[in-house]
Structures are given as C-alpha cells and as structure tokens.
C-alpha cells in the first residue's frame, strides 16, 4: 500500500549568551562539572528568576530571520514535572504566549524549492546534564538554566531529504545570525522528529512516533528513512502503530523503542508568577531587526552578483562560513573570482583536511593567496609552480618571497624565450623534420626541451605558441 508521510520537527537551540536565561551565572560547554552555577540554577529557596536581555535579543533575531510575528509582551509559564535534571521541579518556558509565531523557511531538495512553515518559537531554560552509571546517576548543573529557543515546525515535510534540508537550512540561518553554535554533535542544537503515515490521499493523520537523539543531519535523514519503512511494514501487515518515543541507534541505523506514550503527560502548565509580563520597547525590537547580520540567502545573491560563482561553489561557501570569509578577504585584492574560488574550495580545503588544521588556526594570509592567484592569472607562474608556492603560502609565507627564493618566476620575456627556442630548434633538426611530416607530437617534445633549458621557468603556453610560430617559419 502507498502512504503519505507527515513529518514535523522540534528543534532546541542553545543561545549564544554570556549568562543564563534567568540567572547571572555563565553559560559554558565542557567546563568542570558544577562550576558554572549559582543559587538560582540550583533552585535554592528564596531565589527568583530574572530574564536575560541578551537571550531575548537572540530570540528576536531568530524570529525575524524566520519571518515570525513577534509578541512584544514576554510572558513565561511553568511546566511542572519531577525529575532529577530539574531542581525546581518545573521548567520555565513560554507555553501560552511564545515570543514568535507563524513564520517559515525555504528549503531546496532534489524536487525543487519548498516553503516549510514554522508554527512557533519560544524561549525556555535548559536542564542539567545527567550521566547514568551502574552505581547511580551523576548530575552536572552547568547546563541548567542555559537559554534555549525551541523552534516548532508545522507538519510540512514528507520525506527524510526534506527534513534534513529543513534542519540544515535552520542550522545555517541560526549560525549566520550568531544566535547559536548549532553544534548538533555537542548538543547545542537538538532535534526531535515526529513522523506518521496515512493511506495515500487520506486527510486523517496516522499515529505519530517521536524520534530523539539525532546528533547529525545525516542521521535525521537515515532515521526517517528507516522509520517510514518500519511503520509502512507494520501497516501493510495489518498492524497498528502505537504512539511512542524512539531513539536513533547509530550502530544499527535503526530506531529503538524508548517508551510508549500512555496518553498525554499532564504538565500542569500555569503562568510563572515570579516573572511579571515584560513589554519590549518597540524601538529596541526595531533596532535589533535593522541590524541583522547577512543571512545565507542574501550571501548567495551577493556571491552570484559580485563573483558570478556557480550554484555548487556558492553552496560550498554557504556551508562553510569561515572559509567564505577568507575567500571574501582574498577577493579584496584578487582579480579572478572563479580561479580563487577553485583554490579555496579544492586546494585549501584539502590542505586543511590533510594537515588536520582548523580554519581559525590557519597561518595563511588571504592577501598572499590573492597574490598567488594573480601571479597565475598574469602568467608569472605556471599552474604547476603554483602548487609549490601554495604549500608555503599555507604556512604563512609571502608568495613573492617564495618565488624569489625558489627561483620559480616563469619566463614570459619573449626575447629570452626566443633565444632559448632557437637554441633548441638548432639542436633538434629531426623534430623540425617530424613537424614538417605532420607529427604534432614534435611540438610537445620541443616545449619540454625549452622547459628543461629554462629550468622549468619558461611560460609553457607562451613557449608552445612561439615554437609553433618558429617551426612554421622554418619549414616554409
């Protein structure tokens, strides 16, 4: 039987702030356990939450870039549940009045472009991190109270590819905004997928399953592909889908049952009495909105306009913002955008991988790479020589100096080339004879001889052209 697949995604994203959502202790990752907390995070009696302006600002940025309508009155609610990762016994969230509602983001898949609607974005606090050992559970409260936004999509996606494209589009947008680190592998961006199947053409949604623990975008797609197959098989065999929470298991590339949902959990939501409604000043919201950083789609348009790069090249740069920023520096003094782009997305990336260097640790100066590309463009060095120069440029050396030291300068001086060519032709009468008899290979051999005499410094294209001219003269 054929099915329509319905997928909705909830994304939790840690915000880039100095301090926590409701307390002035620091937000960090990977610090000594329980070293970044204060009385509010630990819910000591008598402590009161105080809303972080920086977190609200980041949430406004996210809402604006994703076209959500912003509620100028910020209100919080309590979500009550009892668990050891939550010292207060409730999480402060925005259940009733999210900061943003009704937005969208555009995605692109093999089937073309599609708009995915976003239902809401709300602010909340993260929980403590737990480590489950055999002798008990260890709790680190450093993460407790870290500002989060939760982004809830409408059930607009129909396959794994679309879901992966949606998560990637969001990830890129939030990264460009500087709203979050969006590192899925470190948990600063977490993704829960809701998925259900219904008979093709039906309008009644099937029973959904939620998949957790998706720590990469490729796993989002793999988990959904697996889950579609799993649910379809059960339905084909006349079975029923039970509402459940599952997790993706990397080793077996399958989803594993965590718990069945026995009805909806009652979180007894009610307005947080310790935070009175906060009215955001219109001028403040507008100034944040007016100063948004460049978004991926804007950058795409600019690269098309200014550099005339291909869609493929632009996608590589969009996915690697740091690399793109170096490229822009290079392009300040570089003449050939496409050539510089090729060096960036093939040679530079390959070099980084081979040498296991991260971009922030890179010693290469963009203006040096630009100089090198200009040398190639001007015919001062050959492509082959450039490879040699490149290795040293990546280590922070100046290309003029490298060329000088290694004696790599390509000879494009016509009178000098002419004398070398004549010397070679005088030594190789057989080659002239071969050329007369239509053996074009002779030219290649002669170019090689000139290169040898010039110790590899002759401009090959120029040499080739001049040899052909000289040969034609001599066989007349």
């Amino acid at each position: 039987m054929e099915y329509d697949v319905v997928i909705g995604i909830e994304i939790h994203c840690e915000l880039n702030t100095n301090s926590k959502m409701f307390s002035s202790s620091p937000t960090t990752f990977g610090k000594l356990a329980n070293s970044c907390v204060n009385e509010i995070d630990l819910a000591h009696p008598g402590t009161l939450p105080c809303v972080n302006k920086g977190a609200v600002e980041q949430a406004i940025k996210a809402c604006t870039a994703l076209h959500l309508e912003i509620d100028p009155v910020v209100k919080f609610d309590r979500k009550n549940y009892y668990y050891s990762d939550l010292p207060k016994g409730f999480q402060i969230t925005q259940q009733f009045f999210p900061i943003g509602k009704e937005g969208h983001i555009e995605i692109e898949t093999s089937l073309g472009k599609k708009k995915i609607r976003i239902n809401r974005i709300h602010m909340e606090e993260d929980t403590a991190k737990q480590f489950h050992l055999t002798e008990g559970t260890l709790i680190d409260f450093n993460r407790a109270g870290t500002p989060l936004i939760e982004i809830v999509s409408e059930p607009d996606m129909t396959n794994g590819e679309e879901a992966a494209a949606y998560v990637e589009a969001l990830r890129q947008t939030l990264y460009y905004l500087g709203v979050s680190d969006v590192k899925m592998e470190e948990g600063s961006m977490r993704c829960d997928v809701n998925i259900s199947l219904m008979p093709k053409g039906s309008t009644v949604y099937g029973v959904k399953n939620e998949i957790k623990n998706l720590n990469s975008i490729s796993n989002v797609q793999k988990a959904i592909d697996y889950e579609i197959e799993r649910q379809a098989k059960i339905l084909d065999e006349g079975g029923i889908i039970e509402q459940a929470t599952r997790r993706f298991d990397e080793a077996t590339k399958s989803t594993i049952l965590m718990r069945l949902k026995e009805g909806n959990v009652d979180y007894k939501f009610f307005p947080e009495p310790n935070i009175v409604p906060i009215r955001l000043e219109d001028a403040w919201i507008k100034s944040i909105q007016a100063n948004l950083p460049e978004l991926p789609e804007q950058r795409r348009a600019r690269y098309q306009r200014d550099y005339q790069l291909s869609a493929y090249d632009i996608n590589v740069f969009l996915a690697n913002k740091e690399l793109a920023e170096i490229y822009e520096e290079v392009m300040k003094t570089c003449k050939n955008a496409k050539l510089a782009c090729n060096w960036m997305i093939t040679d530079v990336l390959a070099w980084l991988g081979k040498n296991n260097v991260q971009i922030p640790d890179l010693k290469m100066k963009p203006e040096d790479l630009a100089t090198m590309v200009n040398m190639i463009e001007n015919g001062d060095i050959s492509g082959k020589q450039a490879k040699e120069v490149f290795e040293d440029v990546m280590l922070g050396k100046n290309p003029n100096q490298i060329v000088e030291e290694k004696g790599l300068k390509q000879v494009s001086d016509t009178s000098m080339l002419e004398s070398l060519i004549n010397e070679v032709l005088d030594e190789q009468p057989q080659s002239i004879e071969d050329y007369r008899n239509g053996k074009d290979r002779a030219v290649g051999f002669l170019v090689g001889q000139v290169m040898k005499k010039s110790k590899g410094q002759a401009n090959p294209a120029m040499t080739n052209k001049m040899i052909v001219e000289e040969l034609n003269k001599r066989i007349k």
Partner: protein
Amino acid sequence: MTEIKSKEYLRHLAHQCMFDCSDDELDEIQEEFMILEKQMELLNQVDTEGVEPMVYPFEMETTFLRMDEVVNVLSEEEALANAAKTKNGHILVPKVVR
C-alpha cells in the same frame, strides 16, 4: 480523590518527596491539613462567577530585562555543599533510568 486526611496518604506523599515523618509529625500535618481544608471551604463560598483568574498581585507590566553579564557564580564546593553524595564533582543520586 484520595483521602487527604488519611495518614497513609500523607506518609506516601512524604516518601515521594524523599523524606519520612514520624507518627507525631504526621499527626501534626494531618491536623494542619484539616484546618487548611476548612479555610479552603470558606474561600469556596466566595462567588467568583465572571471573575478572571489573576496571576500577579499587581497586573502591571515591566520593561526591565537583566543585562547579559556574568555576576554571581558559586564555587564548586559551595555548589556541592548541600549534596548528600558526590562523585568526581558531580552530584550522585540513585539511578534514575533503568
């Protein structure tokens, strides 16, 4: 609804909150609950027909937001001071998942 006044229920509640009460303490709590219940009955007599529930004593908005600065951090020792058991700088509790 479970009988709030029953001592067994109070004992169960206390246990769920991770503490235990002596019989004397339970007697006292039971007595206080009965008083509270009577007070609630009194409140229930107030006619609230058409009255919106309120959350804050003063229904006033504020514009205050805290600057995003690190001000107050506990030392690791202070953070763990109230924990019954710790291990490697973490708070150790009975295993919460099976």
